[in-house]
């Protein structure tokens, strides 16, 4: 009997240890000899055991930077692929400018592969997959700012150790994902609402999921919510045409963990769930720890304006134009039914006097599948071809940023879109989802923020007659 118990205990302990090892990741230091001189050399070693993983990865948007436009209203049946590779935004705008797409050599620092420096790139070569950018835990793995490869300068200076990086591979941490995603738009905190480098090490007050255990948070990795299958990472960007799969709060918060079970007014709060997304109440403000870019006027490029500090960030740079910043920003709210309206390359602008909608959620009060979500309202301007009436593709890197000539920069982008020789600036507007920095429940919105005179919601703009607490919700009988 005792022997049986002992054996059972040993078996359980072995199983627990195996599970812990699997969760922490296999120690790769024993499998790799080292002496690596380049990124592809590391990849070659990875492929000896992980060819399937590389093949899987090459089917994802993190590799191809495009996919079927399943997120865009009106393009559901399109067979053309869209993504960062061929779309425009209102930040650095496009990676396509210049002869042979020379802009790639700078922008593709954030492509999880080696060598995509020009438009033509062999997406079938698995030796070019950059495993380390997502998996290296040590060695200060860095990619070069130009050239889409390992940062050789850091290696030469001895501040990066490629061998140590290769031997340290494990499940991605927030630092790995943040290497690109915290720096969207070209620098820390620029693009995404509530997603910046302060989340690498943070507190529950900033984000209940990512906050440290010591602060009462969960210290969760990105992939805890952004569930990953065969290297396809869940999540739909409010700016992107394609998603591989989606993420929702209810993926975890359901059943015994369903929301508001312990709330005093749980039933009343739950009445909101048909029309109000979780994020709306639980992300009352975004960018709590450092400011995010709220506007970007490209039309100020080349001017001699005085840069001022706004939330400790500069408001003007001669090569980029002028900006405004926001910290602890109260979101704007809009209906979203799971689709976006998206400006695509070559779309004609009907009325240049009105802001061009770069991205906006689709849905309205009559749409039963839509809910009210929080957004960062980001505005700006960028050049439109005066004759063809579409937004121009211009070469910023190694053209506009060198000599401030819009004409030259737009000509350089005309391989993709013809340029008539005349341009003007048009205003743009983008609705960027605020889906990070979930606040502690004590800081969630209270009734009075939106109802009983609360000004947070513009009820009329959302299609209500007035405060639905008084005039009735959208399900109310007329």
């Amino acid at each position: 009997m005792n022997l049986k118990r002992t054996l059972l205990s040993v078996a359980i302990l072995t199983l627990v240890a195996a599970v812990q090892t699997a969760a922490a990741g296999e120690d790769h230091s024993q499998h790799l000899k080292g002496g690596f001189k380049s990124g592809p050399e590391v990849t070659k070693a990875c492929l000896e055991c992980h060819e399937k993983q590389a093949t899987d990865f090459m089917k994802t948007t993190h590799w191809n930077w495009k996919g079927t436009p399943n997120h865009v209203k009106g393009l559901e049946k399109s067979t053309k692929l869209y993504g960062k590779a061929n779309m425009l935004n209102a930040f650095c705008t496009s990676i396509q400018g210049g002869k042979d797409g020379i802009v790639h050599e700078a922008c593709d620092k954030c492509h999880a592969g080696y060598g995509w420096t020009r438009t033509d790139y062999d997406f079938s070569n698995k030796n070019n997959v950059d495993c380390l950018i997502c998996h290296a835990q040590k060695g200060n793995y860095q990619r070069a700012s130009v050239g889409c490869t390992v940062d050789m300068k850091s290696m030469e200076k001895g501040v990066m150790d490629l061998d140590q990086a290769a031997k340290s591979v494990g499940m991605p941490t927030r630092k790995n994902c943040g290497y690109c995603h915290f720096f969207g738009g070209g620098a820390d905190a620029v693009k995404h609402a509530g997603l910046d480098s302060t989340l690498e090490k943070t507190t529950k007050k900033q984000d209940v999921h990512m906050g440290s255990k010591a602060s009462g948070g969960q210290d969760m990795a990105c992939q805890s919510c952004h569930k990953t299958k065969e290297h396809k990472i869940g999540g739909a960007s409010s700016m992107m045409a394609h998603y591989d799969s989606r993420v929702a709060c209810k993926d975890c918060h359901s059943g015994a963990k369903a929301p508001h079970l312990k709330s005093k007014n749980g039933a009343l709060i739950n009445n909101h769930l048909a029309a109000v997304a979780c994020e709306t109440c639980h992300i009352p403000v975004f960018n709590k720890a450092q400011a995010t870019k709220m506007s970007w006027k490209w039309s100020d490029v080349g001017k001699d304006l005085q840069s001022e500090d706004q939330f400790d960030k500069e408001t003007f740079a001669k090569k980029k134009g002028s900006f405004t910043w926001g910290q602890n920003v109260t979101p704007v709210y809009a209906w979203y039914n799971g689709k976006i309206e998206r400006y695509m390359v070559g779309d004609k602008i009907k009325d240049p006097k009105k802001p061009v909608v770069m991205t906006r959620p689709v849905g309205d009060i009559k749409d039963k599948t839509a809910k009210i979500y929080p957004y960062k309202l980001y505005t700006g301007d960028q050049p439109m071809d005066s004759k063809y009436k579409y937004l121009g593709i211009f070469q910023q890197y190694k053209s506009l940023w060198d000599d401030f000539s819009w004409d030259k920069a737009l000509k350089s982008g005309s391989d993709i879109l013809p340029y008539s020789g005349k341009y003007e600036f048009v205003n743009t507007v983008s609705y960027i989802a605020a889906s990070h920095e979930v606040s502690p429940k004590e800081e969630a919105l209270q009734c009075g923020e939106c109802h009983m005179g609360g000004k947070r919601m513009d009820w009329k703009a959302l299609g209500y007659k007035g405060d639905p607490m008084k005039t009735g919700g959208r399900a109310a009988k007329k």
Partner: protein
Amino acid sequence: MKRLLSIMVLAGMIACGVLSFSKTASAEEVKMIGVITKIELAADGKSAIAVLKDVKSGENVTILVSDELTLDKFKDKRIVVDDEIRCKYDNEGGKNNSKIFKKTAGC
């Protein structure tokens, strides 16, 4: 009239006292951009001294860094000598305590 004058003098003295007290009690906040010439981590790893060469004046400024996020970057060499830094610090008690310490880099 004398009473009014006394009240005004007294009010003036109080105001001067409050203002002079505020000046000594509040720290001076300074913003600068500089290039790191030296980083020295404390033995316990809980703080570090970084010397920045101000890009405008060329003067060396010694900054005391104690936030965990920046210390991590020193430790794993994501911030190293020769990096250009945007820094905000409080000068309090003769020490320049870092409030913001970030690389200026961006595309």
